[in-house]
């Protein structure tokens, strides 16, 4: 499709939907705007487009087709964030008016179903992690880290240690939101780099980083390079020994469900992404759900409310024993994501969750061997070892040999209806990419993905120009990214575009 921008489709006079009009009695109250001071009455109507319903629908349906969702392609090149299959039955639950049409302030007697889902999901998560209580409010993994950061902040303050404990230790292969949140919550960030051979956090550097100033450790394991760190318990013990807290980033816990838990590894806090490990879809970047848990001693710092059950088996919102002031989000959590995770766990049970972990590891080690056979691709660190649920690869060799790196492969792979992502910055691994097949993909699908990578690597050697001018079969051609970095040229809205340009990017001045 060569679909115009919505505003170009406006045809004055058309309408997309009729607003339910007030009844005659209400309308007879007259024009309520008259009573407002002049300055508060909008003078010109908003310049929204005017379009009939079918045209609006067609526009968005066409745009929808111009996406490669996980439902449409073998979407295993999303770095650590490969989305697993989000079962369609769970979408039906999420779409149910029985969930959608609930107001958050309804009397608890009228929302027992919603409360049961929150309560049971929390119970399941406690089993998976071994921790004691969860907060289901956050709208994504980063907000879960914010929740954790707030708990740590408030805990430090409550101990009267705000002056002393002002550092947070993390690793370079932990998600960027860990250090970013630490900074918002007023901590200094100390980042530990990996041992160049094993890929695990450098133990000596870690020991040097931890001291009495350490408020907390925020760490992932296995990290986003897919290597499990067996010294994790020593690390959490060390942090505890200096009076700090330990938080486990389990956004992606795919490979270890039912295999190893936050509790046994000595963590005080952890979080999971329900959109990711527990199958809720990604929705172009949310709504997601990040849920974080704590051990007993931190429960008083957890955001209120949580859901409890009374002696009669009735569920209710509990504000006691948790922290009403530690609010990070409106209301009680992203129900459409939570109900999907709830249903997904129910469909699998203990044995099923373990099988998820086992197959995700099996799949990853299968594709790991295949990708390593592609000339120009390698996997730094921990040579000869199996991997956990993902692997960070490098195509630096390909870059050296052909001049084509991950950026070029990214542009080209869409021509094969696939996607690959370059991994989080900084590029400690040069020309990186991360593949994580999860448990959702079959052998044939993994083979298909590898075949495409192989073919592109061959193209890079034989005809690098194909990559340099890719994509060839997308809706659009190469985008001028410089325009997006220049304040004079960028246009974040159609309104700004119209001020800056006329026609097709003809500057007005």
């Amino acid at each position: 499709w060569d679909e115009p921008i919505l505003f170009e489709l406006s045809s004055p006079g058309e309408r997309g939907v009729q607003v339910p009009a007030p009844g005659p009695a209400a309308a007879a109250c007259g024009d309520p705007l008259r009573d407002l001071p002049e300055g508060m009455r909008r003078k010109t109507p908003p310049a929204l487009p005017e379009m009939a319903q079918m045209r609006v629908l067609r526009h968005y349906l066409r745009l929808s087709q111009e996406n490669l969702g996980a439902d449409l392609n073998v979407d295993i090149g999303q770095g650590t964030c490969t989305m697993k299959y989000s079962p369609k039955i769970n979408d039906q639950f999420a779409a149910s008016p029985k969930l959608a049409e609930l107001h958050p302030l309804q009397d608890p007697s009228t929302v027992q179903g919603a409360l049961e889902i929150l309560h049971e999901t929390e119970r399941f998560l406690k089993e998976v992690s071994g921790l004691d209580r969860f907060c289901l409010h956050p709208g994504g993994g980063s907000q879960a880290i914010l929740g954790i950061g707030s708990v740590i902040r408030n805990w430090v303050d409550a101990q009267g240690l705000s002056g002393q404990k002002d550092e947070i230790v993390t690793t370079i292969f932990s998600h960027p939101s860990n250090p970013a949140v630490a900074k918002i919550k007023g901590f200094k960030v100390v980042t530990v780099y990996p041992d160049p051979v094993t890929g695990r956090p450098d133990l000596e550097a870690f020991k040097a980083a931890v001291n009495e100033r350490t408020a907390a450790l925020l760490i992932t394991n296995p990290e986003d390079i897919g290597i499990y760190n067996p010294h994790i318990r020593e690390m959490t013990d060390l942090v505890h020994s200096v009076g700090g807290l330990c938080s486990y980033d389990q956004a992606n816990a795919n490979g270890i469900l039912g295999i190893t838990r936050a509790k046994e590894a000595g963590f005080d806090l952890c979080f999971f992404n329900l959109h990711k490990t527990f199958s809720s879809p990604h929705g172009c970047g949310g709504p997601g759900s990040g849920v974080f848990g704590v051990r007993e001693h931190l429960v008083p710092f957890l955001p209120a409310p949580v859901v409890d059950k009374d002696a009669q088996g009735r569920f209710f919102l509990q504000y006691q024993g948790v922290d009403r002031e530690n609010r990070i989000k409106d209301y009680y959590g992203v129900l459409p994501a939570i109900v999907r995770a709830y249903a997904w766990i129910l469909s699998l049970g203990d044995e099923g969750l373990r099988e998820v972990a086992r197959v995700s590891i099996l799949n990853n080690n299968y594709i790991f061997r295949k990708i390593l056979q592609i000339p120009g691709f390698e996997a730094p660190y921990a040579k000869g070892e199996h991997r956990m649920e993902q692997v960070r690869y490098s195509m630096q060799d390909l870059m050296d040999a052909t001049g084509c790196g991950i950026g070029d492969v990214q542009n080209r792979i869409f021509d094969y209806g696939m996607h690959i992502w370059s991994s989080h910055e900084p590029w400690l691994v040069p020309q990186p990419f991360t593949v994580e097949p999860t448990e959702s993909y079959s052998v044939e699908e993994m083979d298909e993905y590898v075949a495409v990578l192989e073919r592109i690597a061959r193209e890079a050697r034989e005809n690098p120009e194909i990559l340099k001018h890719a994509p060839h079969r997308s809706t659009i051609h190469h985008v001028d990214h410089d325009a997006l970095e220049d304040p004079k040229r960028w246009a974040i809205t159609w309104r700004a575009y119209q001020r800056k340009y006329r026609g097709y990017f003809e500057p007005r001045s």
Partner: protein
Amino acid sequence: MSETFVHPYIPNSDPAIQRRMLESIGARDIEEFYACIPEALRFRGRMDLPAPLASEAALRRHVMGVLDRNRTCDEALSFLGGGCYQAQVPAVCDEVNRRSEFLTAYAGEPYEDHGRFQALFEYESLMAELLETEVVNVPTYDGSQAAATALRMACRITGRDEVLVSAATNPDRLRVIRNYLRPDVKVTLFGFHAATGEADLEDLNRKLSSSTASVYFENPSFLGGIGTLGQQMADAAHAVGGLLTVFADPASLGVLTPPSGYGADLTCGEIQPLGIHMYYGGGRGGFIASADEERFVQEYPSRLFGVAPTEKGEWGFGDVAWERTSFAKREDGKEFVGTAAALWGITAGVYLALMGPKGMQELGTGLMQRARYLAKRLNELPGVKAPALTGTPFREFPVNFDGTGLSVKEINRRLLERNIYGGQDLSEEFPSLGQSALYCTSELHTDADLDRLASELAACLKG
């Protein structure tokens, strides 16, 4: 898994397939991959989870049974608002946000996810028309997060560390703001007039100083009234070198002047009323908007999708000023960014495209008319004062029951027996208002609905 149970979600749960894969890898068994985990860290117990509902039909029956324990606002008559609104959701909004392609897309490049980039650019653009601003972000988690981030942006822009926040702010939002700004930004409240609900300018002026990064208020306020002092507050803030941040209800902007029209530097708010189901408070998205000035743009933590030319003259899209984000710079980026609420942004875009200028005008007018009519009807009841404040309500207003001798809690209990969800109880968070409740109207309310509340409430008051 047992030999006989292959899960539809896990293609390779078949033991024969697993054996072939292990052979190809050269591994003995799957356990071998876990050899790196010390035995002390291995969890050898069972997770105490319910027996799996392996068949989809059994799962459906169970989950639908749980959901049936809810009684929705569709099934009752609700007057709850206070930041989350029962509103029309056009079917096209549902259709678009349930499309597999949008629902399961994620982090594709501007080429393979061209549609996602364009749809979000259009969302930004539609909001920009409503707000009369030139920059709008890709949605953040919710309105409260947007408010908190806008205030942190104001601090960075001004290099100051105190914000003055109206006391007529949604109490839970105020908690989010305080919490998010802790420890380095000071939050100071300024009051409102008990009779009108309007800001107390004197109090505000007393508190303004050269530390003031921003003044913040909600318009309409949490108590439902349309604030008319915006320009004066903007002038006051600007006079001390601070900014004005306003939290606005987008549903009101078909009829009300957008904050940028009375001097707001930053506008923020919640997009739930724009075609997003309430979901027990789980359907939320926040917006932040400003002028297209680099000092503002560079302080957004969110992604900002911009339009850009391509080699062959199509509309291309991409991230504007990527280097400001935590994705690019970790702790040296602006706050943080992650998966938030993009799909709701697309949905709100669809909603605004369907509504158009006329729809937004009619929506705003109709809500104000209903609020006015409902207040009139309730005010007729003995002992009831509605609205309890003299300002002009947009869609909701406090109703005071002090004259009835009954608590809001008791009245709501009686209404619930009649399958009516009465207004939000304000007596705890706003004790100065006595036994008051915040009653909210909806464009779904007919005259009959409003009359029904009046007559049922009359009956409740009799006992």
